[in-house]
């Protein structure tokens, strides 16, 4: 009975090991995202959660491996029992004796009573590969714990490459054909249901139950994993090619409060608003590529990023162009993609040959203090100036809320912001804050269906933002 408990998780493992390689083929996912974005934006957004999916499948692999191993512990024990309990009136022993002559048609993979399960483990292909891949899996799991991953990325990354050992071992795990089944020919001659009770007379003259014959089941795992393995190899080759491409840093801008903006150029670069790029700094680490949100618009002649890494990326900014009224909510570092969005919308607005459906943008920005985001305040200021010039100053309406207001920084703010309605808006709202010292309730507008894009400060903002009817 334990055999079915082992084979069931094995089937699940085949399926899960096929799936686990797919979410980490980043370039493949980019291509996929591009093609299905025209059909279904929701589906395209799910592709952003690839690492979560990878982790879920990994948990499943760990769970199924555990069940598989525990079941096999029982299997080994009972197969061994069948050989040790040399009593011809017991069915397991009779079954174990089959195939002793030709050593091919046997059922019990443990062929002699002169051994023990541990020795069998290390002398069969299935056993050896099983031990190797389980060890690889355990090492991968322990080095992928969040503590290790966040602090010692090299350990995580190098150890994770044990997956190569894992997959090779997995493919060969079934090559020993240790799982046995009755052959088709034998099934015709020997019906197990009929003959099981009459095991003492198998093969004797005059019986209709000849000795059953068994053969090993052919390995199946390779059929499941060979496709994703090939895809992954292609993925790594594409990555290798892309790492070689030359990117030139055209400008480095040092914004106040140690905010660094990098402007770069690369041949054939194209982007959408709200996307991010992976950047590596070899002087820091040859292995680590970190995501940085793009702050330039697709219409710019360069692409730029500002120091700061965002989590919880909401990459659906492409839908912006199809809505009339847009509410953008940014918290802290979440304001970064809005730089790209606002710049792009502004470019589209100023180029009269571009049809811009968006008529009004409400921008809400919540941050502890604006010092770290002065580069963004500069952008807002310049947009404000350009809009006033064109007489469309009500296209973009923004409200800034400071949550960590300090009295002694008032003068600093006055010095930093020279002129413009940004200053008045700032002081107007913060005067309210000083009096109440609470997070003010922002007035929400409703105009038909208003899509709201919350960004930053993790998942909480998405839930907290709601547009009342």
């Amino acid at each position, binding site marked *: 009975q334990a055999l079915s408990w082992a084979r069931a998780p094995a089937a699940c493992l085949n399926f899960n090991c096929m799936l686990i390689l797919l979410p980490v083929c980043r370039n493949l996912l980019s291509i996929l995202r591009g093609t299905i974005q025209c059909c279904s934006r929701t589906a395209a957004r799910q592709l952003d959660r690839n690492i979560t999916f990878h982790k879920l499948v990994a948990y499943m692999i760990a769970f199924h491996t555990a069940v598989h191993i525990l079941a096999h512990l029982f299997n080994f024990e009972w197969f061994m029992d069948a050989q040790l309990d040399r009593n011809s009136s017991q069915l397991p022993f009779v079954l174990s004796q089959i195939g002793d002559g030709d050593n091919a048609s046997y059922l019990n993979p443990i062929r002699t009573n002169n051994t023990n399960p541990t020795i069998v483990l290390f002398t069969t292909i299935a056993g050896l590969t099983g031990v190797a891949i*389980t060890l690889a899996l355990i090492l991968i799991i*322990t080095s992928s714990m969040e*503590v290790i991953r966040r*602090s010692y990325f*090299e350990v995580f990354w190098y150890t994770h490459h044990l997956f190569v050992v894992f997959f090779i071992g997995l493919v060969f795990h079934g090559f020993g054909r240790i799982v046995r089944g009755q052959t088709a020919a034998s099934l015709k001659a020997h019906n197990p249901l009929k003959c099981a009770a009459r095991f003492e007379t198998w093969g004797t003259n005059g019986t209709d139950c000849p000795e059953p014959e068994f053969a090993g089941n052919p390995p199946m795992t390779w059929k499941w994993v060979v496709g994703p393995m090939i895809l992954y190899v292609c993925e790594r080759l594409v990555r290798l090619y892309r790492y070689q491409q030359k990117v030139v840093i055209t400008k480095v801008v040092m914004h106040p409060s140690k905010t660094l903006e990098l402007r770069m150029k690369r041949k054939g670069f194209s982007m959408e608003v709200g996307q991010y790029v992976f950047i590596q700094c070899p002087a820091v680490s040859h292995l*680590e590529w970190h995501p940085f949100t793009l702050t330039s618009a697709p219409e710019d002649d360069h692409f730029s990023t500002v120091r700061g890494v965002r989590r919880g990326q909401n990459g659906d900014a492409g839908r912006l162009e199809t809505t009339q009224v847009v509410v953008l909510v940014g918290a802290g570092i979440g304001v970064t993609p809005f730089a790209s969005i606002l710049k792009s919308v502004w470019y589209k607005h100023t180029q009269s040959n571009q049809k811009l459906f968006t008529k009004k943008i409400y921008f809400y920005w919540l941050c502890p203090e604006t010092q770290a985001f002065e580069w963004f305040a500069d952008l807002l200021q310049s947009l404000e100036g350009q809009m006033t010039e064109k007489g469309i100053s009500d296209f973009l309406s923004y409200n800034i809320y400071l949550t960590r207001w300090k009295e002694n920084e008032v003068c600093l703010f006055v010095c930093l912001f020279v002129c413009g309605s940004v200053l008045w808006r700032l*002081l107007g709202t913060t*005067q309210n804050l000083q*009096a109440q010292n609470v997070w003010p309730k922002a007035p929400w507008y409703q105009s038909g269906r208003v899509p709201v894009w919350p960004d930053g400060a993790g998942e909480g903002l998405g839930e907290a933002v709601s547009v009342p009817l």
Partner: protein
Amino acid sequence: MGKIEWAMWANEQALAAGLILLTGGIVGVAGSFRGWQYAAYAIAAGTFVCLLEYPRGKRNKGTSVERTGQYCFTVCVKSFGPVTRNYYVRALLHAAICVPGGFMLATVLGCVCLGIASLIYLGAAIRGEQWEPILPRTDTRKEVANSIKQPPQNPPPRPPAEMRRKRAEDLEGAAYVNPINVIANEE
């Protein structure tokens, strides 16, 4: 990313090994396998390893993340002093504990995992790492200055900011009407 503290990874590996040893031992005893005595030993050894490895040590650089409810374990482990602080001792201890697990199939996986953890601890010890307990901070907070009071409910009675600010470009706007009549000093 900075220097690696191998002990962090060794700790995760040893904890996992302890759990595997424990599980293998339970299965061996519950199923009455041959050699169940080794399984019984594995239950005890696995539990001991888990208790020893549960409290995370303090990192030399960076923030240390505690495991849930590890404080009492920290106190216990700390009380053994140099025996638990030194990683050479731990490496040797794990190597010794894992050996009997190799004699039975159900516990052999735990044995190998613990052996690997022992090797990583050896690496950590060679690099001079040590186990430091994570204890709650006992430094007293700075006394809040007297000047911090409850924020006033109403703003002070003065003209709004736009009128108070003096701007060089806009003298007209900077001027305001004094609510109190100012009588010129007649000289």
